[in-house]
């Protein structure tokens, strides 16, 4: 039993989940309407696009890299689909397929620059980000594209079995895919590569391929997010995803995914993402004065970051102390 508790204590995702729980409880107490079915579902639904990006960034981070272009890739996908829906006669499945191809293509571009051409991941995606955003602005300078089909809108907003909005189901699918991927030989290699690239390479893992795949998966997450976003806002908006990239990185850090890679899992990232979404709601429930809202938002974000990191450092400290104690006992 003690072993089990110790194990949970070491779980890198724990701080993020704890933070999320605290904020949920706080919010629920101040505003019981938050947990009403329709409100909570809309909260989940409107957070879903960003959370998709969080999952994508989480994957890239575990490989020891990062991706800050996924938010703008999502915007590009959303804008392209909305544009095609309203200005062309293509069938809906074709348009959605095009969206998928854009997502995979963007992810592939990132992956090639990072995995094959060995450009620093932060800088590579720092460069591809304006490429995607610029394309999105070029295609649709103003939000518009009102031709999104009713079926897509209602599909995204629908609730299955009375309890599960489709959007959340999309998240669940991504998470399941992620778990399957990680358990597979490709996935395990990701952790190895993230932890130590040299030794992973030496032990025969195809580092370049794993990195490319990780970023393509990120692109796929952007596609899912873009599809949900299109159904959610029923139009195209070139700026819808601009804020998502940096927020996602913050969420992933809070979620305990180490910057150096090789550690952490998707649950912490999810918790971190929802934590960030809930902050802005909590600010409403707390009736923070308007001009202080910005400051409050970032303060809490920073507190969350510090907490998550400090807890992790603390855990490491206790672990090394316990190891020292063990080795001393062994010697005696």
């Amino acid at each position, binding site marked *: 039993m003690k072993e089990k508790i110790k194990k949970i204590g070491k779980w890198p995702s724990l701080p993020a989940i704890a933070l999320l729980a605290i904020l949920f409880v706080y919010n629920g107490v101040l505003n019981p309407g938050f947990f009403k079915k329709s409100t909570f579902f809309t909260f989940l639904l409107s957070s879903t696009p960003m959370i998709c990006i969080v999952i994508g960034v989480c994957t890239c981070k575990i490989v020891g890299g990062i991706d800050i272009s996924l938010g703008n890739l999502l915007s590009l996908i959303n804008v392209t689909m909305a544009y095609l829906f309203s200005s062309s006669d293509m069938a809906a499945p074709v348009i959605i397929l095009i969206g998928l191809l854009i997502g995979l293509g963007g992810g592939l571009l990132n992956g090639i620059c990072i995995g094959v051409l060995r450009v620093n991941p932060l800088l590579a995606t720092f460069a591809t980000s304006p490429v995607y955003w610029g394309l999105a602005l070029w295609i649709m300078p103003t939000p518009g594209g009102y031709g999104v089909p009713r079926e897509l809108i209602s599909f995204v*907003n629908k609730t299955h079995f009375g309890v599960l909005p489709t959007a959340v189901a999309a998240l669940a699918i991504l998470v399941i895919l992620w778990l399957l991927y990680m358990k597979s030989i490709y996935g395990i290699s990701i952790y190895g590569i993230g932890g130590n690239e040299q030794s992973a390479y030496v032990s025969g893992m195809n580092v370049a391929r794993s990195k490319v795949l990780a970023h393509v998966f990120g692109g796929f997450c952007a596609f899912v997010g873009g599809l949900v976003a299109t159904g959610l806002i029923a139009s195209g908006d070139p700026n819808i995803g601009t804020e998502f990239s940096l927020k996602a990185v913050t969420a992933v850090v809070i979620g305990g995914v180490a910057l150096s890679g090789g550690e952490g899992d998707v649950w912490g990232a999810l918790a971190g993402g929802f934590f960030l979404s809930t902050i802005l709601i909590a600010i409403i429930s707390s009736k923070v004065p308007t001009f202080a809202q*910005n400051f409050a938002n970032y303060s809490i974000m920073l507190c*969350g970051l510090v907490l998550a990191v400090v807890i992790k450092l603390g855990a490491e400290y206790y672990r090394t102390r316990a190891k020292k104690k063990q080795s001393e006992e062994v010697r005696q």
Partner: protein
Amino acid sequence: MKRLLCIVLCVLMVLSLAACGGESGSDAKAPDTGEAAPAQGGGEKETKTGGLKIAYSIGYVGNAWRSQLVSSLEEAAEAYKADGTIAEFQVVSADNDSTTQISQCNAMLAEGLDALLICAVSPTTLASVVETAKEMGTLVILSNDPAVYEGTYCVVNNAVSYTSLINRWFATKVPSGSDIVYISGNPGNATDMLRDETVYSDIEKYGWNMIGEAPGKRNQAEAQTIMTSFLSTYPNIEGVLCQNTTFEGVAHAYENAGKPMPVVGGDSVLSTLRLWSTMEDYETIGVTNSPAISVASLHFAVLMLQGYELRDNVLEANPLDASLVNTVAVDPPVAITIDGKLPEDILVDYPLLTVLSRDEALEKYADQEDTYIPDASMSREDAIKTWFKEK
């Protein structure tokens, strides 16, 4: 030690949220002072004379115009709170993220609102919010930035009359056949699209030649860059059409180039007026795109909730979709010319306009910061007079 730090930080976080929140809007839910039957969904609304719960969702507050919008709004709300008309009022900022705005609006609707005023981050993202509001019987007003949703109202500044006023004055100073340049606003903004359309049609009407055009994004530095570029490319510019928060950029560009400034039109921000006062007899016009549109929106919402009826034919076509007639557009409230005068034929079309002379304006707003925009909030009486039938 580290564990203690964690616990302290957690507690601090929670406390700071609670503490920050204490000040505004924490009045206990005041008992309804009027006929307080809660509004039924989808149709007939009961009227209330007081105890209203209203919220305003704004895309972001990070610039002077927006912050003035909020300041004027909060002032007007305080006045309503003082006489009990409004029981709870809140302004919420979405930090430029449209999905956050959706989430916030829903959270506020869940608390139960009589009216929700929205200054949208993006006009196309609010369909689900409007649906939810309708189900709950909450009145939805799109404030400042128009959007197209059945069953809502738009209270916006009249972009066409704002631009026309500047252009008409401009026409009295810049003859037909002149070469002019146009520094526009934000590409992709609904209001700016309307302004651009008006400028293009006026250019044809008054016979000017537009030799250059670029988006100034209502940013002085950007305007300065653009104007410098124009000055290099076009040797003879006879007039510059620009907008609020761009005049100084244009002026600096001319100063750095060592060229005399031709007629420039459109900016009323206080720092422009102050710069203008150093320019002796130079003539320009400042027209205000009113941040206090928020106040007009608030009056509109309160009056509707209180059961006032709209006058016939007061609603206009939505700027974004002419088939939806749900908009009231407010003309610019303040214009500033060097002598406080405008030609009669212009004044006749703008009955609610206050025209100030440059020196009058400088004196009136001497205590305000450079970024302040001379503005006038619509009063409740004017709102009734303009839009509603007397009760």
